[in-house]
């Protein structure tokens, strides 16, 4: 055995292996060169006759040759296998443009989607969700909210009343026209601080493209020491940036509600004209009021409401807001629903789009 002999063997093997035409031929070559009785074994056996030093030299060389051949075999095997599988595309052809097999597809209502998203946004800043009756005493719906007996909202053409006897203290039973009945109820729970989000069905005697007699509101109430308009602005900005996008601007505008003082209307910049009030061509934007869209009402909780909830206005202050879920959702760009009532028609062709 000498160096040339080993090299020659290796060269021959490495040149023969790639010529194997199929896996069987490759197998045969592998056995011939590297098998238990293969040629390489013969070389190793001959090593017994060598001196210690030569054994080391030849040992290394033989291992190298063996590895080179094994590598050639492995590479050829991959080539042959791939070749065989190459036909798989033909033998197991399917029409991949056919529709997939879909699992049963369920859909949540658009209002559920909106309520979840709104909840998540407020939960991130430490608000918790509550629920209070939809059918409630006048006391919680109006009287405790600083709405005098003769307030227009309490007339029967604005609010639905239940045909039931009046309670001497708590008044008539009404379908809550807003989620604000949760304010005094939450205050009565005795916990402090209050950071509640109350999302519920509300009812008003209106029905047109932008009003459904049943709709949803979300009410926020934050009461603690030293709560201020600055916090209202902070929370409002957080909501608008999360729900409508970072690029939207906000504005507080003087308004009037009985249960808050100061009261404000919260506006967001119009996404159609970018808050400028004018379209690209210079004409006035028809979607907004001079660049602004009304989102809803808010304000600092009226002291009379705090008192009704047994909270001392000298110690605590708070803000509250109440916005329509549907309106807020419909204001988001992209979703152009022009009649709110479609939400409650339950046409599956509509519901299955969400």
């Amino acid at each position: 055995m000498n160096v040339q002999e080993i090299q020659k063997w290796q060269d021959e093997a490495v040149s023969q292996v790639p010529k194997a035409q199929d896996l069987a031929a490759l197998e045969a070559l592998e056995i011939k060169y590297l098998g238990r009785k293969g040629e390489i074994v013969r070389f190793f056996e001959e090593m017994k006759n060598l001196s210690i030093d030569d054994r080391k030299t030849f040992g290394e060389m033989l291992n190298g040759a063996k590895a080179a051949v094994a590598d050639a075999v492995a590479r050829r095997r991959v080539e042959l296998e791939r070749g065989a599988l190459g036909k798989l595309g033909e033998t197991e052809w399917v029409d991949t443009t056919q529709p997939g097999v879909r699992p049963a597809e369920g859909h949540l209502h658009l209002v559920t989607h909106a309520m979840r998203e709104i909840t998540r946004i407020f939960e991130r800043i430490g608000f918790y969700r509550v629920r209070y009756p939809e059918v409630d005493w006048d006391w919680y719906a109006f009287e405790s909210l600083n709405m005098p007996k003769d307030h227009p909202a309490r007339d029967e053409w604005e609010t639905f009343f239940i045909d039931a006897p009046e309670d001497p203290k708590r008044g008539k039973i009404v379908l809550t026209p807003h989620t604000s009945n949760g304010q005094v109820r939450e205050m009565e729970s005795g916990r402090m601080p209050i950071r509640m989000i109350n999302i519920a069905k509300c009812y008003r005697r209106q029905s047109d493209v932008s009003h459904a007699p049943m709709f949803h509101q979300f009410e926020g109430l934050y009461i603690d020491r030293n709560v201020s308009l600055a916090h209202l602005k902070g929370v409002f900005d957080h909501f608008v940036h999360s729900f409508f996008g970072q690029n939207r601007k906000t504005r507080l505008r003087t308004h009037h509600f009985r249960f808050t003082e100061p009261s404000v209307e919260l506006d967001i910049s119009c996404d159609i004209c970018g808050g400028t009030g004018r379209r690209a061509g210079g004409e006035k934007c028809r979607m907004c009021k001079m660049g602004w869209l009304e989102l809803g009402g808010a304000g600092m909780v009226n002291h009379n409401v705090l008192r009704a909830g047994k909270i001392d206005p000298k110690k605590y202050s708070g803000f509250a807001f109440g916005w329509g879920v549907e309106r807020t959702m419909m204001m988001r760009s992209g979703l152009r629903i022009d009649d709110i009532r479609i939400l409650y028609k339950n046409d599956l062709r509509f519901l299955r789009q969400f």
Partner: protein
Amino acid sequence: MNIELPYSWIKEFVRTKLSPEEFAARLSLSGPSVDRWRKMGEGLDGVVVGEVSAIENHPDADRLRIAKTRVGKSDTTIVCGGSNLRVGMKVAVALPGAAVRWHGEGEPVVLQKTKVRGVVSEGMICAANEIGLFDAFPHEEREILDLSFLSVAPGTPLAEALELDDTIFEIEVTSNRPDAFCAVGMAREAAAVLDAPFLWKPASPPGPIPSDEVETVEIQLEAPKLCPRYQAAVVKNVQVKPSPWWMQKRLIAVGLRPISNIVDITNYVMLETGQPLHAFDADRLEKKNGKYFLAAREAKKGEKILALDGKEYDLTAGMLVIADAKRPAAIAGVMGGEKTGVTRDTTTVIFEAATFDPVSIRRTARKLNLPSDSSLRFEKGLSTESTTAALARAVELAQKISGGAPASPLYDRRAKPYRAPVFSWDPKDTIRAMGVATPVANMKKMLQKLGFSVRAAGKTFKVTVPYWRDHDIEASQDLDEEVARLYGYHNIPAKLPDSDLAEWPDQTELLWEDRLREFFRGAGFTETYSNSFVSRDLLKKAMWDVPVLVVQNPLSEDLAVMRPSLVPSILQVVADNEIENPTGSIFEAANTYMPRKGELPYEGLMLGGAVWGESPNGELFFQAKGVIEAMMKQWNIDAQIKPSELKKGQTLGHPGRRMSIMVDGEEIGIVGEIHPTVLERFGIKHRVAVFNFAVMNLVSKAQPMTYEPLPQFPPVRRDISFIVSERTAYDEIVGIMRREELLRRFELFDVYRGEGIPAGQKSLAFHLSFADPSRTLTSEEADRALSSLATELKKKLGADVREA
């Protein structure tokens, strides 16, 4: 409530040089917000004043003429069909390029030089309705606008000639601020917001009148609560005619139609000062003892009045009227009477300026379905102190534009002396509400700019409310708003809440509602939201006969009661969708309502749903049951689905395909198919299975998640199939299987009837899995267990075991 006001009118009372756009933006940030604005002369570009110098007949058209019209230095030739065209007349000429509406209809069309029946026309002589001025200058068909009253040179742009180069703002005024619902009030707000001079001076009452010429008006306040103040003044020798253009122009700008100078004065003063007025024709009032007599009293039973809108109204007790010696002459604060109103022949006028109770006015206007500009203002609550200036102004204007002469002082009756509200104010409270500190001196100045007077009282202040704010300022907290808005909400920094977290747990009902919604969505159900209100008819169709919560004032019969169950609504949804969707699955989570005596109604969260399609072998029932079973398994809910009797009043279920969902022996829900007769009433052609349960009752039985160790030793699997009688319940078979100790799992995988199986019998096949938790089971042991099971099935159920 929105008001339209021309910028020029506001600027009469506040000095500012801001552009309309800047003014609108600044005002909106701190005061009433400007929703929109528009240029008044918009659309009059290219329309000029022309003077007709000669007229010829059109050679080919009888009704057309050719008018030589001067519109500058030279004459133009215009073909015109105007019936009132004459030489020397001043007319509105639309030159090529101007936009006009043909006959006042449709979209504006841009005019071009054109031939009319062969004659070149270099423009158009317009009728008022063709250039949007019909309200200002009403006319007959084919009548062109006669501008001969103008003294401008031909060629002057019409907008300039009519002084229409103004901006109209549409401003939202909140319902608590009727004082700002007028030009003066708006200017007062603007002066405070812009820190600009406020220029309004109240009109002076008429000077002394020789005593022998004074006309007396006796005023009686018979209902002082409903009318706390009444003022009146007599003006004689008035000449009723159209008002001057400057007045008409402003009325038109805000959407009011000019009528006659006297009527226009009442409207003009209302728009200027916010105080509604009324004008009586003094000679048409019934006198008392030879004197004018006006009483503010409640209407008497059976009284009627023919109002200025030409309709007769039945008055009822509680409605306030202004009556002369004999009969109602006006529905107070709402509308005047036709018989005592101002006409062309009126020569003596009594102007009224009064204060009425807001609630009474609102209810009266609503009851009579007669809202007016006047009632709109009164129902918001006006100060008793705003009558004098308005009445004086009316008298002043009557002198100026109708040639009238004051014939009385301003008569005045009031229920009680006026006391301005005073509140104590601690600036620290305002700083706390704003969340930002500002010097007390600044805050004081802001209040003063708004008309409040502020004087020190120890460490705090006493603040006197100006009369025009005596309704809306109710407490010292209201002063926070005045300061905060003038400070500017935009100047307050935004801060997230930085105090203690409110670590209260979410309400469990809300958590479950959300989990269950997600579960049903995942199971392929589509969520619906149906109305909480339903009709009695719907409940009847669904044979749902239980006490219900009735809405006292429903919008319609379709929305008459609060639903006691979701099932009828769900069936309606199926009925509505069935044509487009022959199969489907829906669910809804919502409250249902049940009346309770002396308490709020019971209001509970229910979850209901339906699957529909074909169901020859109860397939739909099993689908509905399956989803409930899966849900119960998901949360380890310890409830049972058991057969039960139909409940009284809820008999819509299919008697053979219905089960109850039971918790602690009580039915808290149902799952089952609907009786075909009920489906027929809904017009549903397919079969429907529903489920419906009380969410909190069910989930109260959810057991905590537990962990079962994975088996250490492999199971031995066997199958068994056997024939039993058709009516042998699965539950009975399961009972027997559960008693076989080594049998760990079993699963029904086939139910077969038909060929090879005797009639009235069915073949069932189960996968079985035997195991022992402590050791590996031998094949022999498993076979022994299997054969003992087979023996039990034979013994207990007479099963014919085919294969084991």
